[in-house]
């Protein structure tokens, strides 16, 4: 379907994403198949339009916000195409790019797929294997409305990245429509760059062209800034995390893991930030033994914010009444284990909590689904409340936006980075709170500026944090991506030379700079 001219006026939702930034487009295309995507790309070439790819528009770096030309929304490409057994016996599921994470997760949980009647026989036969040994797709970005194409294009992470890593290692296959309208099929392990980073592209007309992947070594931390790089890169990895700038991902095949028999979500209340960091370090060294999937942090400011929310909104706030009044901060832990392992794990957790100065009688431990749902609501109440607070401030000061950092450092730098945040934020006299993925040393500092002047001060601080994090060997854009909002961080991380190499790769695959214009590069 193609929407143009005045009809576009009624389709405003497609022009913005969760970054709250809004753009404009000459045409909106809603293809249902790969062939339609190829055709759409050829139309864009004929009209000399740039193409912005859009999934569920849950990104917060404005990658899906168009700056003119064609907006290619893949939301109608929502078929789950089938199952395959990988070498080694693991299952993989192939989906069109518009399938939502929620749909995939619930289909896997129920072992029931809306399109399974149209699957090939070999796929249908694997359903019984899935029923006998349930599997799941580990990446868990908070926004489960995200599309699989978006999850792969942004190499999405979530709380469980602590145990399972980001989306990248699960991607087994991709179908990508390139900027010239050609379809490229990629399978992990089939095509690599050589030791110098060179690779060849064989075109449909027989021409053979030589490209090169960027050579810089990425930080050892979580990172979602720029193209995958380094010698010997698997070519499938170039498209994972490329944020829609190298090709249109139309189908993805992702590997699955066996579903742990039981899940336990725990909120550990502690008397000080030092105790929380001690507990984090002691637990993460025992990640495999304790089957820990996530370690998340709520600092004193976060708990204060949540207590206020409870006081103002009561039970509808999502904050349980039993939040201990005396707790200074909290660590959230997810455990995914087998039933017979649980008693030993809970025993170890009780000891570790007591050793860190916490009281196991006051910590929450949710095992049943309704209990875990209450904890999930509790965790999500915080970022939502922060967003609402910013929305209130924006009524008086429309120029103010949320200043939420997305930076990760190596393990050894966790205390140093927390000390840096505390010192600089206190100096600047800004209101803020810190929460997030402490297990991966990836804390989100949320600055709450009340005035445009505070906002500018916060922005300067944000940039300073980014510089210092890079000096520590970390990433200034660990999971949300660069998009159109954090382009300056790409150069900060990769240097001018690194960005030039990324641009060179971009030119090789998209000489007309048609795809994702304004994303990654100005």
């Amino acid at each position: 379907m193609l929407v143009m001219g005045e009809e576009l006026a009624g389709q405003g939702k497609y022009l913005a994403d969760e970054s709250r930034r809004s753009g404009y487009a000459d045409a909106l295309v809603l293809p249902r198949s790969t062939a339609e995507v190829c055709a759409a790309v050829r139309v864009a070439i004929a009209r000399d339009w740039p193409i912005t790819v859009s999934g569920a528009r849950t990104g917060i770096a404005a990658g899906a916000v168009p700056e003119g030309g064609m907006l290619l929304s893949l939301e109608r490409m929502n078929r789950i195409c089938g199952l395959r057994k990988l070498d080694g016996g693991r299952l993989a599921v192939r989906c069109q790019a518009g399938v939502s994470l929620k749909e995939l997760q619930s289909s896997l949980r129920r072992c029931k797929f809306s399109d399974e009647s149209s699957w090939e026989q070999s796929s249908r036969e694997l359903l019984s294997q899935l029923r006998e040994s349930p599997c799941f797709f580990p990446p868990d970005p908070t926004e489960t409305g995200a599309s699989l194409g978006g999850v792969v294009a942004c190499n999405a992470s979530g709380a469980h990245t602590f145990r399972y890593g980001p989306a990248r290692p699960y991607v087994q296959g991709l179908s990508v429509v390139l900027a010239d309208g050609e379809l490229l099929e990629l399978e992990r392990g089939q095509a690599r760059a050589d030791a110098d980073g060179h690779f060849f592209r064989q075109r449909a007309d027989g021409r053979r062209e030589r490209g090169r992947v960027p050579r810089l070594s990425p930080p050892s931390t979580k990172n979602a800034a720029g193209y995958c790089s380094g010698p010997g890169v698997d070519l499938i990895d170039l498209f994972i995390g490329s944020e829609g700038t190298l090709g249109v991902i139309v189908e993805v095949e992702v590997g699955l893991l066996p579903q742990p028999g039981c899940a336990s979500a725990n909120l550990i209340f502690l008397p000080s930030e030092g105790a929380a960091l001690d507990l984090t370090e002691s637990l993460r060294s025992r990640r495999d033994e304790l089957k820990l999937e996530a370690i998340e942090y709520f600092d004193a400011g976060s708990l204060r914010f949540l207590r206020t929310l409870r006081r103002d909104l009561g039970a509808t706030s999502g904050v349980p009444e039993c939040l201990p009044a005396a707790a200074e901060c909290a660590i959230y832990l997810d455990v995914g284990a087998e039933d017979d392992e649980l008693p030993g794990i809970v025993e170890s957790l009780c000891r570790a909590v007591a050793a860190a100065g916490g009281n196991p009688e006051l910590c929450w431990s949710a095992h049943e689904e309704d209990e875990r749902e209450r904890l999930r609501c509790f965790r999500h109440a915080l970022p939502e409340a922060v967003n609402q607070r910013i929305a209130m401030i924006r009524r008086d000061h429309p120029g103010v936006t949320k200043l939420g950092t997305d930076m990760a450092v190596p393990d050894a730098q966790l205390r140093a980075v927390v000390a840096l945040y505390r010192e600089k934020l206190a100096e600047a006299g800004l209101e803020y709170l810190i929460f997030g993925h402490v297990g991966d040393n990836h804390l989100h500092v949320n600055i709450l500026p009340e005035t445009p002047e505070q906002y500018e001060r916060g922005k300067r601080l944000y940039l300073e944090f980014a510089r210092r994090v890079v000096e520590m060997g970390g990433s200034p854009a660990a999971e949300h991506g660069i998009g159109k909002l954090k382009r300056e961080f790409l150069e900060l991380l990769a240097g001018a030379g690194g960005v030039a190499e990324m641009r060179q790769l971009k030119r090789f695959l998209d000489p007309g700079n048609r795809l994702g214009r304004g994303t990654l590069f100005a």
Partner: protein
Amino acid sequence: MKIAVCLKQVPDTVDLQLDPETNTLLREGVQAVLNPLDAFPLEAGLRLRERTGGTVTAFSMGPPMAVQVLRKAVAMGVDDGVLLSDRAFAGADTWATSLALARALAKFGPFDLILCGKQAVDGDTAQVGPGIAAHLGLPQATYVTGIEVLEAKCLRLQRLFESGTAVLQAACPILLTVLKQANEPRLPNLAGRRRSLAFRPKTVTAADLELAPEEVGLAGSPTRVVHVASPERRRGHLRIEGEPAACSRQLREQLAAWGFAE
């Protein structure tokens, strides 16, 4: 204060389905959970214990897997749990169920306070709590939303009615059915979870309770289920989706069509 709380395990109502032929519940693959309305008397018991000291003991009647609801209660903080489990109990109606529970409460009691939920979400009878009180010869107060301890074993209770509330004073021992308005149940705690994973309930059978075969199960039940049917669906809902301006226009037109003035 010695407190007992009665809990029932029910099928999770989140995705409940009926067999279209027989109109009976399809239980296969359906999770079993604590009756949601029983979390409120449980929380009420734990809060009373925190104020007055004493113990809270949970009771449940059901198949062996009903131990799960006792485990949950232990994780939330109860001191002990008793499971009434015996094939002879199968098919019990509210009379036979409340009789068996009353016997167990007498065996492990006497209790100053017995707390029950308003009703179970699978049977919806609201008869078991009052039935227990009757079998034990205890006074009872239903639809309780507030419990305050005045002095040793004297309570001030608040009861909720459609037209208002009543405040009354009562002496223990007494049985109360507690409504969801009474409190917000706590989450299980980590130390409680550790205890719950090692927890083994005291299990009692019909013989342990000195119940004769004609007093239990189907034989002890004066009522029979002769027919089950889905109620006629009288209420519907209209979902309006789209751009906000178009939605509000459609809503306004629909309200006007239903006879609501602008």
